[in-house]
């Protein structure tokens, strides 16, 4: 049977849309939400609750619905749990499935939880998940978690993509109901740039549900069309389907825009959602108010719905939610829902009002429609397994609940009054004030440049919202120095009203049998909240966490005020004394995709590539990330694994010549008349006597005396140094240098420029390095006599302008050739060609690490950890002790740094050279001392050395420099490894090869 009323609402009756729910094919209309389409088909039951698996129906018509969560899918991979049926627009072929039920929605074995409800009282998790220990793995996680889950997680990679945008506007208006539209118009008319966003598929807000209202003699929907046209003409950026999800510092508002979920087919390259980060000079919050449920036994049965939602389904979607309804209310607004439904052909069996005094005009309108009004009544129960069949109502007199009567119905429309949507305002830490008359919290003290308009600050009715919105829009414009006027709005058939707030409704039943729900999704009842208070919870934040009320995906939109009223009653305090829990972003559940935006897959994070990277990729390099760079780790040939490739690369380099892409090294040009003074103050070494054309290994400390970075530094001229840093330290070192220069030594005439990316750098190492290089060099004699170890000069290499360094990080004869980055690849290829007769072998970072470890050269950050002094690292020779000061000089004199017992860097040779230590392994002085055994250090680097034919390691060991030759022990899971402390300079200890 169809509950659609022909011709009614804003749906397109000429455009049917097929969809499925739990496999059943159904028909809806273009313009429907999934919820309105289901209701048009007479379906209220849409899911099972989280804890008790109770049957649940659609409660609201908006994003605040706690129950109508379904799984939706479009095609393989495009699967999403917990889609709100009240938000998801109907599209052709939409497949929706109910959740939390097995095997079917109608017959769910999990419903047994409902019978066990007494076990799942407030604080269940805290009371239960305590003991015994092994129950965690065997029972709690696998059984209870699964039974209590909310939907299924997708198993496939999300094929959609997501977008993001920064935007800057004069005025951002959140919410496009009457207040928001009026605000946007007023601000835009003054010339301000305005963005107007609304979570619905079209603007209008409550006007969409109130077609009977007339504004200045124009029917609401005609006025709306005019307003939309004017907004467009004024250049207002209108974003429907867009939720203002968070309000952050200084008027930054996060928006999540649904871009394609409503489309039958998705255009290529269109993002599914777009995250906007909007910075607005002024914000107008016009998000309206949310209707509250009433709290009574059985208020969660399918067919029990908010009265305002029923009105929206009727007027906006042309769907009559029932044949025979009962209304229960504490607010005038529900009367209009009843009247509209009665006028549309439904029977309204009664309006049950908790209040004793009812407005005469409402009484007479009810009478005219033959609707019975029961004042001073309460609801004490409902019946019907999968859909409400009857409601039990009782008169209340002098606080006593009298005998009940039963009203038969297929829907119960409830209204506990309205709560301003305070969420975004609360994100700003704005202060709230309790309005005793309206019995609600209202926004009060503002912390941001914002206005709150309309129902969001407790003003009810279309006329009030329009006027207040226009005023807010004009104020926003005025605050920006623009002249804005506030038009008058003459609104007729406005249906503003008043009401009262309640704790749970009074009942004549045994309180222990009553199941009056406060938080539908988390299955929290009034009884749970009272129990929490009895068990000692005093703060509303504790009540929330103990009971989980307000912690569901609707973030307490329906439950917070009801929960507060009950907690306050139980505590014997007033609601403002108890206060509200903190609202936090996001306002509605937001996908991870929207947060990630473009940053997924290959674009997940910045990946820096060198000019030689294309060659490495083409030649099968295996890459590794180093800081933000991707670097070739090794170049496997055939079926080689890493160990085999590295061994081959290292042997080739030591035997003939290897080639390495060193472009990622940080480079800083230090220039100016005070360059040498600056270098003396920054690096530990003395620089004054370093002649132009010479290199020196430099060590950089922090002022605490610990090693921060190192690198080879060339003196290019009297007033210029070419500094190199570690790959990962480049930005940090430049930042440190700038910091001291700008704030400690602003008098120095010296300037720093990053040239890391100006140069591509190729390292050539091995006994045949000169033979390969020499024929390519012009303008420089690179013989050993003319261009010895630790020299630098500008020249031409392979016809390219170059800066040539002679240095060695491998222990072999070595050069680093710098060329302007655009020529990096050409240089590499020229060297490969020239080196071919010598079997030139490309090597990656792994071999580079191994080759340097054979020489005992440290890698800052691997062999040091931020607490290693240069003496600890064996670099005491690099300290310019005669200098007046350098960064860290004073730090080196700190008591802890001069004390005995410091961990010092040494070499380690396992007694059995076939055994390789684990990096990070702890070291003890004794093999079998009782536990706990004192750890005296740890292994920092460990390799199998092809050159030595055995394993080698470096380690930080307490007083290591005094322990040369001693045996230490490395306890592992199944054995204790003995190793001898040695010099870390394992290979060619006198350094003759590098100087050859």
């Amino acid at each position, binding site marked *: 049977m169809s509950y659609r009323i022909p011709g009614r609402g804003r749906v397109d009756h000429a455009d049917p849309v097929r969809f499925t729910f739990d496999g059943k094919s159904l028909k809806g209309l273009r313009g429907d939400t999934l919820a309105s389409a289901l209701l048009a088909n007479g379906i209220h039951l849409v899911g099972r609750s989280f804890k008790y698996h109770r049957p649940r129906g659609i409660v609201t018509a908006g994003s605040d619905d706690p129950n109508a969560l379904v799984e939706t899918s479009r095609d393989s991979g495009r699967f999403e749990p917990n889609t709100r049926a009240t938000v998801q627009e109907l599209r052709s072929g939409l497949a929706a499935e109910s959740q939390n039920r097995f095997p079917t929605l109608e017959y769910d074995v999990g419903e047994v939880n409902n019978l066990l409800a007494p076990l799942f009282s407030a604080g269940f998790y805290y009371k239960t998940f305590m003991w015994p220990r092994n129950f965690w793995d065997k029972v709690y996680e696998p059984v209870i978690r699964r039974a209590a889950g909310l939907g299924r997680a997708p198993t496939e990679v999300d094929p959609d993509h997501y977008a993001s945008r920064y935007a800057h506007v004069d005025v951002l208006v959140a919410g496009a109901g009457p207040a928001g539209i009026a605000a946007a118009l007023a601000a835009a008319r003054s010339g301000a740039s305005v963005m107007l966003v609304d979570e619905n598929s079209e603007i209008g807000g409550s006007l969409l549900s109130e077609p009977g209202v007339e504004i200045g003699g124009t029917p609401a929907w005609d006025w709306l069309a005019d307003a939309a046209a004017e907004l467009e003409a004024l250049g207002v950026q209108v974003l429907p389907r867009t939720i203002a999800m968070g309000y952050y510092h200084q008027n930054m508002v996060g928006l999540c825009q649904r871009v394609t979920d409503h489309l039958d087919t998705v255009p290529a390259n269109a993002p599914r959602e777009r995250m906007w980060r909007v910075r607005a000079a002024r914000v107008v919050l016009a998000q309206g108010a949310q209707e509250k449920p009433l709290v009574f036994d059985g208020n969660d049965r399918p067919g029990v719905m908010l009265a305002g939602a029923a009105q929206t389904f009727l007027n906006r979607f042309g769907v009559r939610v029932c044949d025979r309804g009962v209304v229960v209310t504490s607010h005038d607004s529900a009367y209009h829902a009843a009247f509209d439904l009665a006028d549309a052909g439904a029977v309204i069996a009664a309006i049950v009002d908790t209040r004793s005094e009812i407005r005469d005009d409402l009484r007479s309108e009810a009478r005219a429609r033959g609707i019975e009004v029961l004042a001073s009544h309460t609801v004490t129960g409902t019946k019907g397994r999968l859909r409400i069949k009857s409601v039990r109502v009782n008169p209340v007199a002098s606080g006593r609940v009298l005998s009940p009567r039963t009203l038969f119905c297929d829907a119960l429309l409830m209204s506990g009054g309205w709560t301003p949507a305070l969420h975004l305002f609360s994100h700003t830490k704005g202060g709230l004030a309790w309005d005793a008359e309206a019995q609600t919290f209202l926004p009060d003290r503002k912390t941001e440049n914002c206005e709150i308009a309309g129902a969001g600050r407790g003003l009810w009715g279309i006329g009030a919202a329009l006027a207040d919105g226009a005023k807010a829009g004009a104020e926003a414009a005025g605050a920006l120095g623009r002249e804005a006027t506030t038009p008058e709005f003459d609104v007729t058939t406005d249906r503003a009203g008043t009401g009262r707030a309640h704790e749970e409704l009074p009942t004549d039943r045994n309180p222990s049998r009553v199941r009056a729900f406060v938080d539908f999704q988390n299955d929290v009842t009034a009884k749970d909240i009272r129990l929490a208070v009895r068990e000692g919870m005093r703060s509303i934040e504790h009540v929330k966490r103990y009971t989980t009320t307000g912690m569901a995906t609707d973030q307490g939109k329906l439950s917070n005020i009801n929960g507060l009223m009950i907690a306050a009653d139980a505590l014997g305090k007033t609601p403002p004394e108890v206060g509200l829990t903190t609202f936090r972003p996001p306002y509605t559940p937001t996908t991870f995709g929207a947060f990630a935006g473009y940053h997924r897959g290959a674009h997940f994070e910045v990946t820096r590539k060198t000019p030689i990277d294309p060659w490495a990729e083409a030649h099968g390099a295996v890459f590794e990330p180093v800081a933000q760079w991707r670097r070739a780790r090794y170049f496997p040939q055939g079926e080689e694994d890493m160990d085999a490739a590295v061994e081959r690369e290292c042997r080739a380099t030591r035997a003939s010549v290897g080639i390495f892409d060193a472009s990622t090294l940080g480079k800083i040009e230090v220039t100016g008349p005070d360059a040498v003074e600056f270098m003396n103050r920054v690096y530990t070494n003395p620089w004054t006597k370093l002649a132009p054309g010479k290199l020196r290994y430099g060590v950089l400390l922090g002022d605490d005396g610990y090693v921060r970075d190192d690198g080879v530094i060339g003196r290019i001229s009297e007033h210029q140094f070419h500094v190199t840093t570690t790959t990962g330290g480049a930005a940090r070192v430049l930042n440190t240098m700038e910091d001291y220069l700008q704030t400690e030594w602003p008098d120095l005439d010296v300037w720093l420029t990053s*040239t890391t990316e100006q140069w591509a750098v190729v390292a050539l190492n091995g006994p045949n390095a000169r033979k390969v290089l020499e024929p390519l060099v012009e303008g420089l004699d690179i013989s050993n006599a003319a261009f010895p170890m630790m020299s630098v000069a500008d020249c031409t290499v392979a016809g390219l302008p170059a800066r040539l360094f002679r240095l060695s990080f491998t222990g072999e004869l070595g050069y680093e050739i710098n060329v302007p980055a655009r020529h990096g690849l050409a240089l590499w290829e020229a060297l490969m060609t020239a080196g071919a007769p010598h079997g030139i072998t490309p090597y990656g970072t792994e071999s580079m690490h191994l080759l340097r470890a054979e020489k005992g050269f440290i890698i800052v950050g691997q062999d040091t950890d931020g607490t290693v002094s240069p003496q600890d690292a064996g670099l005491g020779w690099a300290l310019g002790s005669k200098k007046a000061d350098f960064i860290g000089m004073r730090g080196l004199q700190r008591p802890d740094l001069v004390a005995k017992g410091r961990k010092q860097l040494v070499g380690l040779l396992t007694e059995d050279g076939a055994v390789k230590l684990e990096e990070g392994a702890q070291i003890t002085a004794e093999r079998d001392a009782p536990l706990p055994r004192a750890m005296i250090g740890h292994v920092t680097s460990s390799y199998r050395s092809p050159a030595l034919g055995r394993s080698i390691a470096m380690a930080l060991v307490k007083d290591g420099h005094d322990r040369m030759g001693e045996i230490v022990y490395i306890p592992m899971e199944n054995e204790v490894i003995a190793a001898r402390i040695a010099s870390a300079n394992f290979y060619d200890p006198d350094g003759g090869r590098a100087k050859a």
Partner: protein
Amino acid sequence: MNTDTETRPTAARVEPLPPEARFSLRARAHHLDRISEALWVGVPRRIGDIAENDARRAVCLGPDEWLLTLPEDQGAGLKARMAEIRHDAPHALADISDRELCYRISGPGAAQIVAMGCPRDLRALVTGRAVRTVFDGASVILWREAEDSFRLDIWRSFAPHALALVETGIEELRAGL
């Protein structure tokens, strides 16, 4: 590269710019007059301003920092003239011709492309100005060449990452949603 000539409000294109000579200039304020003479272009004093003289441009990036751009064949001459005044007007002149790659993003949707990765209020970056800022996690120099045309100077190694976003953005705009 996208070379279509769409004119709808969301269309945008990106193109690499040909090489040019680029230098980073650092100096103190009281030497700028002397330096401007040697540069053959007067250096601007306000951050974000661009001075131009016969294809030589100077962009003020910081209180003591300028970006100089000029035709490739004039780089060596500039270096030589600046070396001559080194003692009179101490400064640093670093050749950064190869440090960045430069792109032009243009078309009616150009500002939207920039706003995908740059948090700046582009309304404040008026035509004829250039600033250092951030684009999708990378330091860039962003020039506003015209209302619907931006230039992006980006460190070479970051260019593939930034360009991937630009290309994604162009396709996204083309989808029209």
